[in-house]
């Protein structure tokens, strides 16, 4: 990796807790058009994983606490990864100002003003 490289599919965001346990999401997209696509495992757009015992259970996009901030709830201990289609991601993100139809491209997701977990 280096300065100037272009993000290739999938894009991953993760957070570690005090014990190193992780919550992460992989988002799949078309490398050429940058459009979100259902090309991930199980023909899904996003895969949300949480290590059993991880202190964090929910991803939140945009500044947390706002009624318009999309949240993705991770699986509970022992449960399989949660998956989301493109339409589910768009429906979850269409509350963000400036995105009436939800996120369309991976840059829409990556350039979110704020991502965290709780």
């Amino acid at each position, binding site marked *: *990796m*280096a*300065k*100037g*490289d*272009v*993000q*290739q599919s999938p*894009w991953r*965001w993760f*957070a*570690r*807790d*005090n014990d*190193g346990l992780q*919550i992460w999401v992989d988002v799949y997209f078309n490398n050429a058009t940058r459009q979100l696509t259902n090309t991930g495992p199980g023909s899904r757009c996003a895969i949300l994983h949480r290590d059993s015992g991880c*202190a*964090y259970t929910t991803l*939140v996009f945009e*500044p*947390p*606490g706002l009624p318009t901030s999309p949240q993705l709830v991770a699986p509970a201990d022992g449960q399989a990864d949660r998956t989301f289609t493109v339409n589910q991601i768009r429906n979850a993100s269409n509350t963000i100002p400036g995105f009436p139809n939800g996120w369309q491209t991976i840059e829409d997701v*990556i*350039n*979110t*003003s*704020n*991502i*965290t*977990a*709780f």
Partner: protein
Amino acid sequence: MALAIDASTPAKATGTGTAITTASFTPPNGSLIVLEFGSNNNTAGTDTSISSVTNTGTAITWTRRARKNTNASSTGGAGTAGGAEIWTGVGTGGAITVTANGVGSGLSFEKMLKAIVFTGADTTTFNVTAASSGTLLPTVALASCLAGSYVLAMSSDWAQKGLGTAGTAQTIVDEFDVTGQVTLHAWRTTSVLGAGGSQTMNLTAVTGQNWNLCVMEVRDSGGAAAPPQTPQWHDQSVPRSATR
């Protein structure tokens, strides 16, 4: 109370906004809240310094302890592109979110804010250092550390070489790697120091970084940890009468 990392520690917050905000967390009253902050910039000369830190709930006084970026007031002098900072505050026992207000928004202004909550910490004495270079790997030695302390590190890599590997007896706390832009690393000593003296904080991969590094010691509120007790063996002569 011995120095410990508290379970209230929130997840890192990342983003491209001017402001970066943590999720809500509830640091215990009197706990030390350490904020580790890293930032990208669009051109090498842009100052990435945090302009202010605020929180919801009862207002906390936030103090910058170390900074390394192109600002001439950086700890030990100006650093290189990107930026790393460490700030502290003291918890009041109520739920808060913390916002660091940085510089720039959008592509090339990616930022990371990682708060770590400590109980049993010295909240008044801070031992810090900083370093930077356009080559190799982040590394710096912090002198005069006390036994029983944690040592924290925060670095930015404007060359975006990817996720790092922590040095000996060190553990990655969290990272933010933005392809084509920047990699931000937060790490710490795996355990409290067993002995006082100099502590080197470093990454062993990936080399070729363009880095800024800030390091800070978090001390136990009771000062240096006591050295281990040496067992004292005493001669126990058995009286003649007991051997029959």
